């Protein structure tokens, strides 16, 4: 599964990072960095939670 970020919607507050820190990290300027293009082995649950938990609906998963 590919992780897709819509930068136009992302507010950089990082709710996703608190749910899936292996994949999402906010940098010093408040920009979200997606650390993995694909969902890493064993991380699907937490990445799904982060995608569904994004209050800005800026994340989605694509097959």
């Amino acid at each position, binding site marked *: 599964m590919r992780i897709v970020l819509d930068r136009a919607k992302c507010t950089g507050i*990082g709710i996703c990072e*608190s749910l899936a*820190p292996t994949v999402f990290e906010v*940098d010093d300027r408040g920009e979200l960095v997606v650390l993995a293009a694909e969902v890493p082995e064993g991380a699907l649950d937490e990445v799904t939670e982060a995608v569904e938990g994004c*209050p800005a609906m800026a994340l989605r998963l694509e097959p």
Partner: protein
Amino acid sequence: MSASAVHAGPRSLVVVGASLAGLRAVEAARKAGFTSRITLIGDEPRLPYDRPPLSKQMLAPDGPTDPVTFRGRAEFDELGVELLLGTPATGLDPDAKVVHAGGAEVPYDALVIATGAAACGLPGTEGLAGVHVLRTLDDARAVRRALDEGARTVVVGAGFIGSEVASAARKRGLPATVVEALPAPLVRSVGRELGAALSSLHTRNGTVLRCGQAVAAVEGADRIEGVRLTDGTVIGADLVVVGIGAMPRTEWLAGSGLPVDDGVVCDEFLGAGAPGVYAAGDVARWHNVLFDRSMRVEHWSAAAEQGARAARNAVAPEDLRPYSTVPYFWSDWYGSRIQFAGVAAEDGVEIVSGDPAGDHFVALYREGDRLTGVLTLNGQRHVMKYRRLIAQHARFDEAVAFARASATTAS
């Protein structure tokens, strides 16, 4: 899984309140596979729009004047959501399962209450031009117009929204004063010591901060001319923005029998004490199991999450799930970003990065031996790491050790 198996329950969903929580509620219901009728009722005559920019980008001289709407009308049609906008709800009969709105009766099987909160005004200033709260698009446009005209600005209340207005005024080089009735600002939000640290941003950026002063009187016949404080000082003003808090919009529920106590009282599933009725957003007081306490939060992310959870529970009552969260908010002052997650327990605060007198710090809060909160100033990289630790019930000493280890790695 067949649609009929999922929807043997509710045949219609009504969501009252068309801001972020209400919007996320109707979206989540459809996402969950709910195919029956959905009605979204809102009192403002416009599509749901994003409120955080109202006190931020929209107050800048070159900022947008139109709100960010999440979805156009056509997209609501596509979603199969009937909109009743400009239609304040006036009553609820949970026995008949009917919402009264705009003189009509709207029947429901499942209901999400997301009527938000209303900003408190300053008594005695009704009808006086130049005095505003900041909650709606109309408020924001009025404040922006006054700033565009070069208003001398007085903010009543040293909270987050008022502080953002003061910041916007100073950015334009306009004189700004923040008046706070309590002896120290932000005590309830972030504690005394760090409230003082954040408030020093005001003085460092040329805003006058007057604590321990209430507004004794306002001057001006039709239009605000000045504000008289309890010590007799008069501050000339063309714009007064009142940021002294908000009250949950529960007045329309009077007589409904729903439990109301500074918000609609909900269980951990956001269930509001009547069959099929849930609440979400600023209006909801619910039991947050993560902290084992009753909470009502006026935060953007919680409104979005609660709206979605409340709707999912409402349309699929056979699969109820609790809503718990580490509350989170942010505020932008003078080009700096303030972020807070958790609760500001007063058992102890430790600065683990930066300096409260400077432009960056990370502060951790403890309750007993547990980490309960984190406050950062320009600490975007830090805050969510601690939010996760708070959600994991981390001990305070573990969090401090984590901070030290991160500092070592970073240097």
